[in-house]
């Protein structure tokens, strides 16, 4: 397979709203083209991280090369690039799309077009991809393919009358999809003899091979032994191996030429040197211009992560180092907290990214973590003209030194059925949203546009949205910029001592409400002591809310039957064990769960 006729290559991806069946369709395509038998195939081959499969989402872009024997008698090479589905990974999506020439749009035959359907289609069209729709889940009782076809034509404006009607789950209509790929997705262009330019759309770290770069060759050819350069980071390296993707494995080959998708390994130690979106070129024969669209990815959400057991700090450091090798968008630096000891301030693309990293740390590295309330990056403009980017509330300068503060704002799009417009608008108002517009997609559904402060949506906005729309609303956002805002630091005092790990930045108008709710939550979490413990919320030294944990009055487990002492002892041991999992602040013992509980301050 060293030389493939460019006209028989198809590089494409599948775009869809979450849950509309993207990964399942990918599985069927792989299965149909005979790479794996059904028996060998574990559901959703492309989602190969344990966590991805469990959550049913794609975190890292995955790619597979398949051979398809088309009805015209020719063999075609398909490079299917599976893209991450979540808004946190928007940039990765955009780079994956740039590696493709076309896209399959999967739309649920019952639910029709959703917010992310639109967002992803527009993203694909922005990259000049040829998009053709398929309508999935036609075997559902509530399927209405005709309505969905019309909706696709009306809303997106792409031809949908001959869209394949399929059920990826039950393997119906997959052949039609494959033929449509051949017919509707253009073959790649580019000249194998031009200077090399290749787009990096992902990279992973392998402990044997080092960094493995996933790339699409736009122009030229790359082969083993070549000296290459990453144009944005400036890193250079010698190519050790090139190859393409089998499902779940890498298959080396001689060279990759224009139009092909594959991987290369080189003497690269750090994933950082191979930033997604960067252009690879030949050191001795460089291309004139890097490919467009490269962006440095910045963390949007920050939080403190601490090992539950202080002695595990080195383990946490090692684990973060290893994750970082795989995930260039994770940032961290050491910090210390009076309450929690040694830990790290970590930066993430979004809350989902944060949760995923947290879960991977706990699961793959067996760490028990305490996480502080996530925050965004605030810009603090000081009276002396200096501007600092604040990621840790504890570092907020004295109020007298602050001129004004700014917070990040996002442009949010919420797709909602008309009956829930009221509750959702109310939710957006509560979260300090600024109304932009309402567009009716059809009589019963609307697209609400709001500008929302990022710090209002990183906690539990998504949960609140789902609960107020009974699961019908969907949500997408992109960064808009920074805006001046009246922000204050809310401190929590337990037994009159400030607990730094519980401090956070909040808009002045919601400080009272937040403070009150935090005190209530903490009151339930902190066990009774021999003395009364006041829990206070304060802004700038002024107490705005208070709760009290009463002194312990009764703690008797009097039962003890038939001389069964063992059980009694187990209870006492449990009580003692509980103590070990506490954090000592002053003379108060605070359970770890207290730090976590304030992360989810649901409404109602």
């Amino acid at each position, binding site marked *: 397979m060293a030389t493939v006729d460019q006209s028989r290559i198809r590089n494409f991806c599948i775009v869809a709203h979450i849950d509309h069946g993207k990964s399942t369709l990918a599985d069927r395509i792989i299965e149909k083209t005979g790479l794996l038998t059904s028996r060998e195939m574990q559901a959703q081959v492309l989602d190969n991280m344990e966590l991805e499969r469990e959550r049913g989402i794609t975190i890292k872009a995955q790619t597979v090369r398949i051979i398809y024997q088309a009805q015209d008698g020719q063999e075609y090479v398909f490079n299917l690039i599976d893209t991450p589905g979540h808004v946190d990974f928007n940039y990765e999506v955009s780079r994956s799309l740039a590696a493709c020439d076309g896209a399959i749009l999967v739309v649920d035959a019952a639910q029709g077009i959703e917010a992310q359907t639109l967002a992803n289609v527009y993203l694909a069209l922005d990259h000049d991809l040829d998009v053709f729709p398929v309508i999935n889940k036609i075997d559902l009782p509530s399927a209405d393919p005709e309505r969905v076809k019309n909706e696709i034509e009306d809303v997106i404006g792409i031809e949908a009358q001959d869209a394949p009607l399929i059920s990826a789950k039950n393997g119906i209509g997959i052949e039609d999809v494959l033929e449509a790929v051949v017919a509707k997705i253009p073959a790649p262009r580019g000249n194998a003899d031009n200077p090399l330019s290749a787009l990096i759309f992902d990279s992973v770290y392998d402990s044997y091979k080092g960094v493995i770069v996933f790339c699409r060759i736009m122009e030229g050819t790359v082969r083993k032994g070549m000296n290459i350069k990453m144009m944005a980071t400036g890193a250079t390296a010698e190519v050790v191996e090139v190859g393409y993707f089998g499902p779940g494995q890498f298959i080396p080959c001689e060279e990759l030429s224009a139009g092909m998708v594959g991987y290369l390994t080189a003497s690269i130690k750090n994933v950082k040197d191979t930033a997604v979106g960067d252009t690879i070129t030949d050191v001795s024969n460089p291309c004139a211009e890097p490919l467009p669209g490269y962006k440095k990815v910045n963390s949007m959400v920050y939080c403190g992560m601490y090992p539950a057991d202080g002695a595990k700090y080195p383990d946490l450091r090692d684990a973060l180092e290893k994750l970082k090798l795989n995930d260039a968008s994770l940032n961290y630096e050491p910090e210390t907290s009076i309450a929690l000891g040694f830990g790290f301030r970590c930066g993430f693309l979004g809350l989902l990214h944060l949760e995923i990293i947290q879960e991977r740390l706990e699961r793959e590295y067996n760490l028990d973590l305490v996480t502080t309330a996530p925050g965004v990056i605030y810009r603090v403009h000081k009276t002396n003209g200096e501007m600092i980017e604040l990621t840790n509330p504890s570092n907020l300068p004295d109020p007298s030194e602050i001129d004004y503060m700014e917070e990040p704002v996002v442009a949010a799009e919420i797709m909602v059925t008309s009956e829930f417009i009221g509750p959702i608008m109310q939710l957006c108002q509560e979260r300090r949203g600024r109304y932009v517009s309402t567009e009716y997609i059809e009589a019963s559904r609307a697209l609400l546009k709001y500008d929302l402060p990022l710090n209002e949506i990183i906690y539990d906005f998504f949960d609140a949205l789902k609960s107020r729309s009974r699961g019908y609303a969907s949500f997408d956002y992109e960064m808009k910029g920074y805006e001046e805002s009246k922000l204050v630091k809310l401190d929590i005092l337990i037994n009159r001592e400030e607990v730094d790990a519980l401090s956070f930045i909040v808009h002045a108008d919601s400080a009272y409400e937040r403070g009150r709710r935090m005190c209530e939550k903490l009151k339930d979490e902190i066990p009774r002591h*021999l003395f009364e413990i006041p829990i206070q919320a304060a802004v700038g030294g002024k107490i705005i809310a208070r709760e009290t944990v009463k002194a312990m009055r009764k703690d008797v487990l009097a*039962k003890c039957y038939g001389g069964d002492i063992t059980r009694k002892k187990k209870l006492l041991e449990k009580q003692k064990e509980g103590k070990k999992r506490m954090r000592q602040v002053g003379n108060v013992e605070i359970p770890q769960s207290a730090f976590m509980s304030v992360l989810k301050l649901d409404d109602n």
Partner: protein
Amino acid sequence: MRELSIYLHIPFCARKCRYCDFLSYPATVQEQEDYLTLLLKEIEKQSFFYEGYRVISVFVGGGTPSLLEADAIKKIFGKLNHDFIIEKDCEITLEANPDSLTLAKLEACLWAGVNRLSIGLQSADDEELRQLGRIHDYRTFCRAYQMARQAGFQNINIDLMSAVPGQTPVSYRQTLERVLALEPEHISAYSLILEEGTWFYEHQKELSFPTEDEDRELYELTGEMLASFNYNRYEISNYAKTGYECRHNKVYWKRGDYVGFGLGAASMVSDVRWSNKSSMREYREAVLSSPGFVRKTEVEPDMLKAAASASAEAPKTLSAHRARLAENVQYLSRQEQMEEFMFLGLRLTEGIRKQAFLDKFGIPIETVYGEILGRLQQDELLLIDDSVRLTPYGFDISNYVMSKFLF
């Protein structure tokens, strides 16, 4: 001769109460009879190990021992008297449910030597009794109580329960008043605890249990009212008129030797704890297959010698016989013995004598627990002179205090 207490477990009841997580279930007459046969066999086989002991207390618990027919009661005590040396003033208690007591049973008990009756009333409020899943009402209890008095019982305990769903200080006060009017010699008053696996545990969301503060109010009420009627609180949950403290109960807290017979029964002899098999099938197999020993008078001298040496080692190694019947065997380390000595001893109002600690472990209590004792004394949770005991506040939060003595 060393002192021994005996516990007999009767794992049957007419119906499972909603709070109950004991080894107990409704059973047919045939099942009960089969069990009785096994129990008698076990007593016979086990008795061999306790030749050097005299029995100072017996407690028949359950389940509902009063479900046993008069005949069965006589058989059990006939066996005990035959196989053990029962001290003259041995305290012998039988647990009873108000609904299953009859005059015939009461007379059989007295004939067999039972001198103490423990009746499970739990509440004098019929609605609360229904909530608890009890099958008797308050009137049934009164009749049973009067019957026991008439039959000649002079030492009766009544079990009460607070923090029952629907209970209020008013209804609980009435329960206490009604019980006090009957002048029992002994009252056990427990707070309901939600134990996993019980009906209450499964249905806790649908029920309204008293809040922590209400629970506390009921608990205080118990102490105040019983004290004003001259009941001494001699243990966390037990109150008695002078001279009527439950000897068997105190054996547990003072870590005296006791052996349990029957399904799942717990034992502690010479700092070894174990319990009998809790699955009926395993229990039956163990009892039937264990090698039987016969009484002294009926054996050859050689056999006796061999058996006696096995018996001497028994506490340390548990002989083959016991090993077959036992599960959860724990040879308590010195540390564990100290822990138990403290958290069990502190349950008694009289507390722990420092000298007793020294006698048992050969080391002053201060050397081991000096720092903790000092801290708890400072927090006004312990009173310390020749003995170490809980203050009233210490009683209230005894779990907190006791957990400090674990290593």
